[in-house]
């Protein structure tokens, strides 16, 4: 006779395998389907939508060609590559500014005593109390009045404000794990505070800075609402996300949209997989010292 312990253990181990399978399929299938459609001609998809394993000779890069080439008389093209420069500018600009500000803020929060410290540190998180769409209204009006609405730096300032609290928080946790004795020794040797930050803290915090940069890059690269609100009327400044969403509105064929989605996702997925190891290393290094 089976005990309750054995029945539960068996049922749970089956349920566990089933759930892992469901989750893996649920996360992987959309990605694979995106890839599949991007290299398959539309006629093949329409003829047999359930044929998920296409023949090799059917595959081609026609959809990619169509989504990146410039439109010319006689051939369709959506010029998607031209928007990559905008997205890169916004994302890298946000990363550089956010890291600069958050390194200073996190250092102050972990190492220095100053008036209103707790109030200031807590107030950074007030950012998340206010919905983005609500902040957008006055900023939309303000930037419209200033004539800056279609400009990319306006977008960078907004991404900076919306990522800097989490960046300070991530770096602060890491700075706590760096022993203070090193910095004190450097100050005894005649470094001033600013030199301590640039020469001691920055190099030691590189793994955490890389992880934080990745987070900021992803937020800025993937963002849609503010890009839509601010840039819609200045087409030459569109980000890739905005440009692709606009293609969906003018009923471009599904295969071309999937090729565009792959191109849009590629940078963040590549960065994510490249930096996963770095993330783990940064975390474990902190754990050993702490």
């Amino acid at each position, binding site marked *: 006779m089976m005990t309750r312990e054995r029945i539960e253990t068996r049922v749970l181990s089956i349920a566990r395998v089933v759930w*892992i399978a469901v989750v893996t399929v649920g996360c992987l299938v959309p990605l694979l389907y995106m890839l599949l459609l991007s290299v398959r001609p539309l006629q093949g998809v329409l003829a047999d939508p*359930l044929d998920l394993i296409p023949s090799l000779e059917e595959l081609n890069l026609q959809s990619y060609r169509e989504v990146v080439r410039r439109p010319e008389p006689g051939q369709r093209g959506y010029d998607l590559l031209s928007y990559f420069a905008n997205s890169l500018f916004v994302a890298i600009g946000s990363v550089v500014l956010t890291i600069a500000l958050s390194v200073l803020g996190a250092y102050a929060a972990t190492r220095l005593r100053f*008036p209103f410290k707790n109030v200031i540190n807590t107030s950074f998180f007030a950012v998340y109390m206010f919905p983005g769409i609500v902040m957008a209204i006055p900023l939309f009006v303000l930037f419209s009045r200033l004539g800056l609405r279609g400009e990319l730096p306006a977008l960078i300032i907004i991404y900076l404000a919306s990522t*800097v609290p989490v960046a300070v928080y991530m770096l602060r946790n890491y700075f706590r794990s760096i022993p203070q004795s090193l910095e004190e020794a450097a100050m005894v040797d005649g470094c001033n505070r600013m030199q301590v930050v640039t020469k001691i803290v920055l190099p030691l915090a590189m793994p955490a800075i890389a992880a934080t940069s990745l987070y900021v890059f992803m937020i800025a690269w993937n963002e849609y609402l503010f890009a839509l609100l601010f840039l819609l009327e200045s087409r030459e400044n569109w980000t890739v996300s905005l440009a692709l969403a606009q293609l969906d509105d003018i009923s471009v064929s*599904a295969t071309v949209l999937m090729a565009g989605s792959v191109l849009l*996702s590629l940078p963040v997925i590549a960065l994510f997989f490249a930096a996963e190891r770095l993330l783990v290393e940064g975390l474990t290094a902190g754990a050993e010292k702490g």
Partner: protein
Amino acid sequence: MAQRTRTPEVARAGAAHVRPRQTTQSVREARFGLALVSPTLLIVLLVVVFPFLWTIIMAFQRLRLVDLQNVFHITFTLSNFARVLGSDDLWEMVRTTLIYSVGGTFLSVGAGLLTALALQRAFPGRWLIRAIVLVPYVIPVVSAVLVWKTLLNPQFGPLNVFGTEVLGWDKPIAFLSERSHRFEILGVGIDVPVALLTVIAFEAWKTFPLAFLFILARLQSLPTDLDEAARVDGATPLQRFRYITLPQLSGVIALLVLLRFIWTFQNFNDVYLLTGGAAGTEVVAVQVYNYLIARNDVGSSAALGLLMSVVLMTAFAVYYRYGVLRQERAST
């Protein structure tokens, strides 16, 4: 600096001992600290606090996008609130938003919890599964929406083709544009809000990896001795989960529920991109956008946005209070 004092008593004793030098140094430290946080503080004030205060003013102004010259012409009117609160679809919007945020939060945290439990113990290939699970969270929302739209397409989307050809559905389901679909289950017809359920499922799919990461990190830092002791005493796996593991996870789960509720409640991207707010999915964030862009009505948009913020802040305050009370009870 070498012997940095930690307790107030020791600090006071030390300050009495070497007062003059300590003071100049602490003044210098305070100045440096304020200098370092001031850029961040300035940005937050400029982009968050000041716009919010301005939103409050705008909510009481008669202001349209076409005549922005009036921006600094402060008037006081309640007509914006009257328009927003008197609109015919107010209650439908409130209901849709609540179902969307509560349903999305529940599914997202629930799926995250199940996945964290399933992946808690090591097995070959676990790192790969973990990386795959994070994909929905990492990819841009526009890519995710486009692939969902394609998968659910009524003409050639694999789900509908599978449904009609293999499962024998009468006709394909327009998951993103059908307000309600009648399903016959055991001879009983049930109306299901298809589009709303689809945007909730999308939200859960896109965000459960975050809950998964948080809960997994907490699970892996739990001490194993309690669980071991319960096993020796004859507790079954479900009992051990219910009485040993779950209570230790309650803190992180409570935090995730709050965060996910706040973010889902104000979510604009997912619904706007998937359905445009049509077919019974018009949540409050989409309506704020529509007041601003489609109707050019800045005042009403600000009024609705303000009400939205008040709801969020109330939820936050109630939650904070409740959380504090619970901690006090635990400590006594």
